[in-house]
């Protein structure tokens, strides 16, 4: 039986039926079931903490109001009355408090920023004047709201201005407003749904992680095999060249958010790599790519092969190619790979790329910033590994695992790893930061994080193991056993099991037990436990702590 859809509660001061209908019927994943209160009740539900609507237990709430609907002082301002800035911001404080209260009742709350219709010229040349202009006050209100909500890890203020801007003058519909109290056209609501779903996917760890680029007429202008690298359109005083450089800059920018790059191109590898290395204006260089398949074979097979090498799932991949036939082929052969339509004109590439709502993540950590570099380091390791046996190779890596308890500095990354790791994950338990803090607050429960490094680089915080001995007795239970695929096979799995068994022994348990909960994706975890030396009964793996668990080979454990 499939899992029920998550529930999304929409709270607004306007008629949100159109928004709800578009949200319900949007084919983008994940599907969401709608909770839509009666018209006019949205703010009431936001401010009344025990309102019966919360008994429906929404997974997400989406709060979208008009500034003049939510902040009475702003309506007074629009009516020409004198309003003190502090009074206006005090109302914003109350609104933020309502949202933060809602954040305790849902896994996450998305909030739309306030916008003004294009026809509201306000005070014209005085509209940004501090203490006077409507635009000044609206901007200040949005920034104040952002600051008030900023500390909450499960509240996200979405930029509604962009939704309206995309639709243009048709974004606001006076007719819909006067006839049905619907302030925005469906174009605006569609954009909102796209951003909302991208946010939910980000929270569920379903953001795309790998961009596979075609080269000719995608990464650069021209065909390198015919034109030669010296004659490619990359930079120069040429609009097409400048557009390709800009596109490359935008692609490189997302690698700073942890997105990894690959290449799938029909070319001679030596010819294409020469262009990447030698062209003076190329932004993306060899060290920006975690891997590539540059040959004359089928691109779909090449992408599948590359993804396997990089150790990601196909559902993590976006493929960008100017050629519609190649796009169609990859879509057909690899339906999990997202293949967006791509502009015919290269001048639109950078804009099309920036509009992709595929890479949203709830927080950016130092590990994200370094991830692309780590994948590149992994490619170099793999090159060295060729020909060496596993033990010899591991022994040369000088692997270190720095073990820490859960603390303020590693909580955010721990939650991120907990919520997005699928393969080496014993129970696939998903928790918000608040839920995790509540869980660990019970005596007898422990959670360790593992920061892994070797002589080639730092993998960052990539492992989590938690054990529950809160009820005492003979058994300590491993609850979370999570390892990023980046460090599979480096004996970090054994390190984690070693930590869990040590803890069980120290607490006086007779056995340490792991109950494996199967998902579609966590077979690697079962395989590890099957080969771990533990006793197996069905999906339960046990270690009798009378036998000490051997420390892992080739890993130096540093306990902080």
């Amino acid at each position, binding site marked *: 039986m499939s899992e029920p859809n998550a529930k999304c509660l929409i709270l607004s001061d306007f008629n949100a039926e*159109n928004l709800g209908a*578009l949200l319900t*019927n949007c084919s983008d994943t994940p599907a969401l079931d709608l909770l839509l209160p009666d018209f006019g009740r949205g703010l009431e539900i936001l401010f009344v903490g025990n309102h019966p609507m919360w008994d429906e237990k929404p997974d997400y709430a989406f709060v979208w109001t008009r500034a003049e609907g939510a902040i009475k002082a702003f309506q007074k301002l629009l009516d020409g009355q004198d309003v003190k800035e502090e009074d206006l911001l005090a109302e914003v404080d109350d609104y933020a408090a309502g949202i933060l209260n809602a954040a305790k009742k849902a896994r996450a709350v998305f909030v739309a920023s306030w916008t003004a219709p294009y026809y509201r010229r306000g005070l014209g040349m005085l509209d940004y004047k501090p203490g006077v202009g409507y635009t000044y006050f609206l901007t200040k209100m949005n920034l104040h709201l952002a600051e008030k909500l900023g500390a909450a890890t499960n509240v996200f203020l979405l930029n509604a201005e962009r939704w309206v801007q995309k639709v243009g003058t048709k974004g606001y519909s006076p*007719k*819909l407003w006067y*006839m*049905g109290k*619907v302030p925005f*056209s*469906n174009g605006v609501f569609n954009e909102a749904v796209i951003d909302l779903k991208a946010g939910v996917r980000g929270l569920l760890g379903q953001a795309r992680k790998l961009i596979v680029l075609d080269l000719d007429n995608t990464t650069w202008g021209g065909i390198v095999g015919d034109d030669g690298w010296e004659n490619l359109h990359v930079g120069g005083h040429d609009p097409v060249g400048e557009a390709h450089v800009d596109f490359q800059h935008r692609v490189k920018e997302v690698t700073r958010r942890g997105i990894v790059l690959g290449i799938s191109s029909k070319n001679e590898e030596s010819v294409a790599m020469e262009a990447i290395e030698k062209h003076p204006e190329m932004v993306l260089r060899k060290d920006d790519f975690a891997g590539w398949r540059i040959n004359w074979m089928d691109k779909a097979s090449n992408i599948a092969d590359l993804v396997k090498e990089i150790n990601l799932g196909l559902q993590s991949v976006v493929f960008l190619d100017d050629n519609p036939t190649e796009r169609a082929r990859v879509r057909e052969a690899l339906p999990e790979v997202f293949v967006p339509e791509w502009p015919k004109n290269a001048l639109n590439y950078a804009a099309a790329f920036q509009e992709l709502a595929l890479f949203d993540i709830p927080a950016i950590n130092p590990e994200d910033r370094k991830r692309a570099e780590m994948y590149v380091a992994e490619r170099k390791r793999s090159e060295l590994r060729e020909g060496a046996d596993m033990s010899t190779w591991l022994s040369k890596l000088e692997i270190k695992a720095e073990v820490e308890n859960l603390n303020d500095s590693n909580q955010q990354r721990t939650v991120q790893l907990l919520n997005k790791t699928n393969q080496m994950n014993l129970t696939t338990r998903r928790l918000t930061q608040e839920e995790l803090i509540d869980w660990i607050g019970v005596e007898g429960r422990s959670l360790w994080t593992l920061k892994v490094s070797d002589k080639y680089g730092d993998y960052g915080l990539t492992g989590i193991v938690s054990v529950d001995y809160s009820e005492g007795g003979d058994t300590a239970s491993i609850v979370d056993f999570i390892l990023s695929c980046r460090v599979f096979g480096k004996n970090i799995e054994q390190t984690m099991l070693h930590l869990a068994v040590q803890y069980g022994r120290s607490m006086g348990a007779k056995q340490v037990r792991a109950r494996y909960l199967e998902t579609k994706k966590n077979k690697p975890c079962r395989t590890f436990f099957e080969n771990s030396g533990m006793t197996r009964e069905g999906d339960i793996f046990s270690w009798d702590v009378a036998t000490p668990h051997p420390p892992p080979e080739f890993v130096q454990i540093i306990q902080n």
Partner: protein
Amino acid sequence: MSNVEKATEIVYAAIDEVNNMLAEKQRIPKDPSIVLYGQNAVIPSLMLMNLVVAVEEVSEDEHEAEISITKVFHSVKDLIDQVKDLLDEEG
């Protein structure tokens, strides 16, 4: 293209837009006999309002004809007729 053909095209394009908001089973068939208002209407009132706005927008965007639906209509055919009359008035 005659104004009847234009009116039909406008109304059917507007139905497409409204159908984007509806689940498959609730979608409005592109059929003149379909009842839109009153007893046996296939869509709720908010969707009827969306349809009116969509008709006016499609007319303006695709045919540069600024029309305003003001009369009550019961079926898809009534709506097409009204749009045709408004296009005739536009000249």
